[in-house]
């Protein structure tokens, strides 16, 4: 398949089941809600070393938030429910409780509640106040700027992590420009995050390493500087490859995000130096979710 001069590989991205949750952070203004959200979703690019993958889903207008203030919705993904709960609580405690004027609310309902502010309340040292409003429990924790208001729990849902595609370009600036265009469109899709810095990862990995202590190492088949010395997947005219990784609440959400992302890349086309779009997989043996690039763009 070739779109606007860009070759779409007949391959697929392979993704895994994850557990996810959404939280809503509000503050006096969008600036401070965003600061808190950025802190909470920081150092959360990959479960390999961060414990979770997290990102900002979108900003919320005052009409969309429980307390009528500007807010930000974040999504957190982890490999299991326990890990998710731990990451959520730790991050909420260090990044939202501490952030001036913030409040924290559940962003998703499910029959599996996980603690949001349920245990953060103990920071109140006995002065915390519980309020059951409309069937939901909230905690009011006295802090130095007033009160930290938090919902006790949020919902945990099954999700999908690791959707991806690779952008292969003639030069590094062209690869980055294409990824930026893709991310701009993908951020408009609800229920997904692109957890890497700016949504783009330049260090795609393969499973395994020559070093026993490492489970993953550089994807040498897509490293342009190794074209002549390894079993490469790159043609001579490709000088840079970048990847976009997508986590979503459902397979369909990732489908949508990949579609608009790849369409944005293709719109730039071969004249902008974009040669191919490919994807990372493990032969289809590890992850149950397969995203076939050509099917998505058909």
């Amino acid at each position: 398949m070739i779109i606007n001069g860009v070759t779409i590989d007949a391959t697929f991205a392979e993704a895994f089941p994850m557990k996810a949750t959404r939280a809503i952070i509000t503050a006096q203004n969008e600036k401070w809600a965003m600061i808190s959200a950025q802190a909470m979703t920081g150092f959360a690019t990959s479960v390999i070393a961060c414990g979770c993958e997290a990102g900002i889903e979108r900003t919320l207008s005052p009409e969309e938030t429980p307390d009528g203030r500007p807010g930000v919705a974040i999504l957190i993904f982890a490999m299991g429910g326990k890990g998710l709960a731990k990451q959520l609580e730790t991050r909420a405690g260090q990044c939202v409780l501490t952030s001036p004027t913030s409040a924290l609310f559940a962003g998703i309902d499910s029959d599996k509640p996980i603690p949001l502010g349920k245990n953060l309340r103990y920071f109140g040292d006995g002065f915390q106040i519980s309020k059951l409003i409309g069937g939901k429990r909230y905690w009011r924790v006295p802090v130095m700027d007033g009160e930290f208001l938090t919902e006790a729990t949020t919902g945990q849902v099954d999700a999908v992590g690791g959707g991806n595609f690779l952008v292969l370009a003639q030069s590094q600036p062209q690869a980055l420009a294409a990824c930026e265009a893709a991310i701009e469109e993908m951020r408009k899709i609800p229920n997904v995050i692109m957890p890497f810095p700016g949504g783009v990862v330049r260090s795609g990995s393969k499973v395994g390493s020559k070093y026993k202590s490492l489970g993953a190492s550089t994807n040498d088949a897509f490293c342009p500087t190794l074209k002549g010395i390894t079993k490469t997947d790159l043609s001579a005219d490709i000088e840079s490859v970048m990847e976009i990784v997508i986590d979503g609440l459902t397979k369909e959400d990732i489908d949508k995000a990949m579609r608009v992302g790849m369409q944005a890349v293709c719109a730039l086309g071969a004249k902008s130096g974009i040669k191919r779009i490919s994807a990372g997989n493990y032969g289809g043996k590890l992850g149950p979710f397969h995203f076939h690039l050509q099917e998505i763009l058909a």
Partner: protein
Amino acid sequence: MSALTLTLKYQPAQRVDMSPLTCNKLNGLNQAEIAALTLQNGKAKIRVAELFEISGDDSQNIVIKNSFEKLDFIGKELDGGNITIEGDAGAYCGISMKAGTITVNGNAGIFAACEMKKGFLTINGNTGDFLGGALPGNKMGMKGGMILVKGNAGERVGDHLRRGVILIEGNAGDYCGSRMTAGTIAVMGQVGKHLGYAMRRGTLLLWQQPKLPATFNDCGTHTLAFLPLLFASFKSLNSKFADSTAVFNRVQRFGGDMAEMGRGEVLVRI
């Protein structure tokens, strides 16, 4: 199906225990079976048919017409369904109710919704003492649900309140919120003396400046984030509490009762 309507034929001299006539207890009974039920009337037993004219067949929607202040225990342990009372209700209306709604289109007597667990009670008139309170000797009053009073309430509103919300559009008497363990009482009108007496935790939300006991300390003025959420939960009510002009988040906060554990609060609109 039309609402099961019980129209009082005459006002008996002695009080009547109405607790057998709830939606859950009448579920599946036909008119003849309901007519044959007996109610305690003073020291005597009286058949429902002797006291009420019965019409309609939907036992999940009960209407009591010509009700007056000696019909006690209406909606006792109600576990779903709706009861509408045209006229006054006696004592213990909605006592220990677990679910459903009760609407009193008149006044209600003492101990209305005492030890209520869940559900919604509306009193369109006034109500007596111990609204949402605990029975004498018991340590726990209302444990959940919501009470809306459009008139005035008597003394000891929310005595030993454990959880739930009591909304009073009018005035509340002395000892409002006494011995509260938690929960919320909101009063738009005046409150009487000894507000929050021996209150442990919980919130008294007031529209008018009260005369506070010496055991409540001023914690200053604040903007509290939970108040918009609380008011938002009142939006669907047919009440002044649903009015957008009633919404505020700036309050003067008083902590107390310091003679008790002192984790309660009186929030006064500023």
